[in-house]
Structure formats: structure tokens, C-alpha cells
């Protein structure tokens, strides 16, 4: 009797866990796309929890808005567009499984995670099935040459790093200190890009250090920085929250007031608005400002639409990238007149500042945007604001 009760208790516990896990992500089952008449199914793979949720959850909001708009305008050549989703929980081991699940749902193309380490497996599975995999932006430079059917609506990490360096140089900053997060190739490439460009421009690297995004204390790194460069001209924070946010807080708590510059991984105010409400002196290099002050009126309109659709201020630019990823795939399908992966890829390769919300450029050999004009945002008294734009050589 007791044993039976225990078994039931364990059974209930396991069922509850599974039910709750399922509740965190709804997944539709798609009908076939291959007959050329039913809905066209596009997949979305992203982490709805874990370290990449701050990017991939907003990207899903953007993708959903794009699908809604496309369907409201009559769909793709008369066929409705359908989005199926798969939560990889920001778990590197879930990547390939999520890719297969999206294919099983009948997707003819799929959006995949921002980070190559965490999304590359899914992209390979989807590409292996002859379909387009489009990362919702950011991540390693290797995305650009990951295969004939893999694309990324973002820019390369090395280019982002170069833009960070260019802005620092333009501000007259002569020396810098690098803090590299070891959690992914992206962070390393970001600081490599910064270092290369900053030294090309005559800047001096005073020192560099590593940390892990999951560290809860950076005491040893701060000790090293204080002895090597007590107040560097700028600190390149090659990371993203929570680790990147922890670094900003602990540097400021330790009395290091140097400006900090990061890539779009630190975009948004969600990581500081409550814990560091008066934060200043932090810069991010982005593709769009979601604060209503982007130099492109189209972006400001898109941000407004996103805010209306989700009922709140978009937390960072990844709502925009999720939106343009869907728009890019659909524009390419229409150009190709087909959902076939190779034909859609050929159409994507012909994109020259194609207007899909923001201008997007690809070519046959490089599947990330090398022409984008970066937005520099500055946090002043706890509020991000657009400062200027920067262009780089773009690779």
C-alpha cells in the first residue's frame, strides 16, 4: 500500500514536471508543406529559459509579429504562413534534437538560435534535410560560412568588436582592457575583433582576462585589473547577461568607473534597470535602437508595432531580428517562387540591402550582413539612448 502510494507520488511528480516543461513552450503540429497548397510552415528554435532566453524569447515575439503581418496581407502567394516552435532551453545538447523536431513538424525553413555553439547542431540538421536555417542574429563569425543553406541576419562577432573599437577610437580613447567570457566562441571573437581594430587604429591593450558567464564572483579578475590598469580608458565587456551584467556591477562596486563597451549581447535595460538604476558610462553596439530614437524611421515604426503586439516595450533589438529573419525567408521564397532550400538560398544570396524591416545583404560566399551600419547606444542615468552610427570593414 505504502509502496503504491510512493509510486503514485513519484508518478504525479514526473507528470507535473513534464506538464510544466511543456507549458513553457507551445508547439503546434504542422500539416504538410510539400503539396504546394497547404500552409507554409516555418520553424523557430530558441531557448525560452536559460542563458539565451533574453534574446530568443524577444526574437520569437518578432517572428510571431512578422507571421501575423504576412498572413494579414494574404500570406505567401496565397498560402498562409504557420510558425511552429521548439524550446531548446539554451541547452547545447538539445540543439540537434530540436532541429529534428522542427523538421518532423513539417517546417520548410527554420529560425535557429543566436549562438553557434548552441544553435549550430540544429542548423546542421535542418541544412542536412535541404532546408534553410536562419539564425536570429549574432554569434560566431563561423555562421557566415557554415554551409550553403545556413544564414544569420546578424553581423559577425569580429565585426561587432571592430565597431566597438572604432567608436572607442573616435571618442579619443587610447587604451583598453579586455574581459572575455569563455562561455562561447562569440565572446572570444568579439574581443579578438576589438583588439585587432583598436591596435590598428593606434590604441593600446593594457591587459586582458577571462571569466565564465556562470561565475558568481569576479574578485580575482578585478584584483588583476586593478594592479594592471586601475582605470583603463575603456573596458571591452565581451559577454552578455547574466555574466556580463555581473561584471558591470562588480566593477562599479569595486570603484572602477571606466566606460564599458559591449556588443548587442548587452542590449536592453532588463539587466540593470532595477539592480543598477543610475548606471552610466556603458555603451552597446547594436543593429537597431528599440527606444524610439533609431535613425531609421522604419525601425521606430517596427518597434512601435512590436510594443503594441506584445503589450510592453521590447526589451532589446532581438524582437527586430526575429521579425526580419521571417521576412527575409518569405521574401526569398517569393523571389524564388519556391520553398525549395537551394532555390531560396539562391534568392537570399542575391539580397543587396533588401528591405525586410532593416536593409539586409548576403552573398554566395558570406551568409551574414557585412554592410550594416551599427548603432551606438549609451546608457545615461539608467536609460539607453542612441548616440551615433559606426561602419566597419564588415567581416
Amino acid at each position: 500500500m505504502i509502496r503504491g502510494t510512493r509510486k503514485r507520488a513519484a508518478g504525479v511528480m514526473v507528470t507535473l514536471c513534464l506538464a510544466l516543461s511543456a507549458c513553457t513552450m507551445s508547439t503546434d503540429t504542422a500539416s504538410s508543406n510539400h503539396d504546394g497548397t497547404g500552409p507554409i510552415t516555418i520553424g523557430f528554435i530558441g531557448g525560452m529559459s536559460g542563458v539565451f532566453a533574453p534574446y530568443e524569447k524577444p526574437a520569437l515575439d518578432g517572428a510571431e509579429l512578422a507571421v501575423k503581418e504576412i498572413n494579414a496581407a494574404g500570406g505567401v502567394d496565397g498560402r498562409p504562413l504557420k510558425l511552429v516552435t521548439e524550446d531548446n532551453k539554451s541547452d547545447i545538447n538539445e540543439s540537434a534534437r530540436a532541429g529534428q523536431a522542427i523538421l518532423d513538424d513539417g517546417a520548410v525553413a527554420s529560425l535557429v538560435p543566436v549562438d553557434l555553439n548552441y544553435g549550430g547542431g540544429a542548423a546542421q540538421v535542418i541544412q542536412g534535410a535541404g532546408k534553410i536555417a536562419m539564425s536570429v542574429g549574432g554569434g560566431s563569425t563561423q555562421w557566415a560560412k557554415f554551409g550553403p543553406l545556413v544564414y544569420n541576419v546578424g553581423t559577425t562577432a569580429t565585426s561587432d568588436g571592430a565597431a566597438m573599437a572604432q567608436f572607442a577610437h573616435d571618442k579619443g580613447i587610447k587604451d583598453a582592457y579586455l574581459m572575455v567570457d569563455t562561455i562561447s566562441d562569440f565572446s572570444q571573437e568579439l574581443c579578438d575583433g576589438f583588439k585587432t581594430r583598436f591596435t590598428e587604429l593606434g590604441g593600446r591593450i593594457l591587459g586582458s582576462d577571462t571569466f565564465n558567464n556562470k561565475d558568481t564572483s569576479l574578485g580575482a579578475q578585478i584584483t588583476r585589473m586593478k594592479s594592471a590598469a586601475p582605470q583603463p580608458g575603456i573596458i571591452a565587456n565581451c559577454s552578455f547577461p547574466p555574466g556580463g551584467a555581473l561584471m558591470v556591477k562588480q566593477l562599479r562596486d569595486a570603484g572602477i568607473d571606466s566606460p564599458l563597451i559591449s556588443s548587442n549581447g548587452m542590449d536592453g535595460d532588463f539587466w540593470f534597470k532595477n539592480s543598477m538604476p543610475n548606471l552610466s558610462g556603458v555603451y552597446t553596439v547594436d543593429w537597431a535602437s528599440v527606444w524610439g530614437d533609431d535613425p531609421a524611421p522604419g525601425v521606430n515604426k517596427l518597434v512601435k508595432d512590436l510594443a503594441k503586439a506584445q503589450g510592453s516595450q521590447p526589451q532589446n533589438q532581438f524582437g527586430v531580428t526575429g521579425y526580419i529573419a521571417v521576412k527575409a525567408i518569405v521574401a526569398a521564397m517569393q523571389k524564388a517562387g519556391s520553398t525549395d532550400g537551394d532555390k531560396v538560398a539562391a534568392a537570399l544570396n542575391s539580397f543587396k540591402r533588401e528591405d525586410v524591416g532593416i536593409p539586409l545583404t548576403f552573398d554566395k560566399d558570406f551568409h551574414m550582413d557585412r554592410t550594416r551600419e551599427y548603432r551606438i547606444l549609451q546608457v545615461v542615468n539608467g536609460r539607453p539612448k542612441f548616440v551615433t552610427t559606426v561602419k566597419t570593414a564588415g567581416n
Partner: protein
Amino acid sequence: MTQTLQYVVDTLSLGSLYALYSLGIAVVFGIARLINFAHGELIMIAGFTLLLLDGWPLPLRLAAACVAALIAAVLMERLAFRPVRGAKDDTLLITSFAVSFFLQNLFIVMFGALPQGTLLLPALGSSFNVFGVSIGKLDAATIMVTFLSLAALTLFLTRSSLGIQMRASAENFRMARCLGVPANRVIATAFAISGLLAAFGAVMMVTRTGLTSPVMGVTPVFAAFVANIIGGLGRLSGAVLGSYLLAGLTVAFQALLPVGPRSYRDAFVFGALLLVLVARPNGLLRAVATEQRV
């Protein structure tokens, strides 16, 4: 020299933080022979209490975090672990994972998966100098809270009737029960203490990071688990020793490795810890017996 002392302070601070986490695991293992991986979720519950009560007077906020984690720990024992008491070790372990995943997903459903910021104890966000060594007020507070917790726990275990019953249970649970020690009360007390320690850990963690999230307990519980295994599972002194060793190795490899291999710091840390286990398979201080609990 000053830099070396600075690294010692960094080690003491990080080790104290780890010790707050690992003591909670050790207290429960000592009595219930259960490695409670859901201890991280007690830290998370305390963290979310601090987040949700943002703006409340500080003493109330801190007290509420302690009460929430304590109640959650007692409920966890009553609802999840008591029904499987006496089951095999792997059943207990899987139950603790199930509780952990359940609570993480419950909080994701209720509050979302994104990290949320909160400002706690901003007065600790500065440092002072002692003989040229800069000591963060938060580092000093972490070390103090850990030592006070350890002292209070030692006093409780040696001076109070319930504490002595807990020690007796930790030595020989069957014999203690035969002599009239109430099993439910002793085990519930161990969980309650672990809840309080989780709350102290959460306060120090949230002050340090400024962030809460449903998965914020995962990294601390991993560090606590490693510290307990290295120190000697179930021994409070072992948990503390393991915590400072883990912190010492982390800081030492961070400080000494050249910039390239420094990216693989954790591989060096765990490699060194593996060597410790090869030399002392039961941990630095012998792990307590792992007999079945009835």
C-alpha cells in the same frame, strides 16, 4: 605581496559564499542521507522573495526571504522526500532532481524565464582599505555571515536538545530512533536549517549579482555538491573545507594561468579536485557512513 593578499581576500570571500551553499547540503545529507539538488531552488525562492518585495523595508525583506526559504524547505521535505524516505539512494536522488526541475519550471511559468534585476543592500557596494588591501564591504559581510552561521549552527548542535538529537541521528539513525529521537522532527529541522542557509546564500548572491532568475540556484548547488564531495559528504567541517579549497583553486588558477589556458580554468580546477579524490576517495575528511535511513 599586496596583490597576493588581495587574492587571499578574494578566496575567503568566494569560499564563504560557497560554504553558505554547501552547509545547507551537508546538514540535510548528515541526517537524511539525501543529496538535495533542489537546495538550489530554495536559494531561488529566497531570491524571488527579495525580488517581489523590492521597495519594502530592508529588515522585512530579509526576514521574508528567510521565512519563505525555511517554509519551502520544510514543505519540500514533507511533500516530496518524506513519501520516499527509506527508498534507495537513486530514488532519493531522482526525487531531488524532479523537485528541482518542477520548481524551476513552476517559476518560469509564473514569472518568466528572463533574469530580473533587483537592488539589495547597496550600502555594501563599496570597499575599504586595510594595509593597502582593498576589501569589498560585501566580501567582508559574506565572510562574517558564513562564520556567524557556522558558529550558530555549531552552538545549536552542541548546546540544544534538538541539536544533540540531530547529532545522535547523524551518528546512528536507527539507534537514535530506538532511544526515542523523533525522526520526523529531526529531519524537518535539518531541512529548516538548510532553508535558512539557502536564504543567507541568496541574500549574498543577489546583493553581488543584482539578478534573480528561475535557474539562479543551479550554479550554487553545483559548487556546493562539489565542495561536499571533496570535503567529505555530510560533514559540516568538510563542506566548509571543500568550499574554501574549491574557491582557492578557482582563484589560484585564475591568477596564475597564462591568458590562453586561463579560458580553461574550470578544467584545471576540476582536474586538481579529481587528484584530491584519487588520493582521498572519501573526501578530505572521511564522509559519514551512508547507511539506509528507515
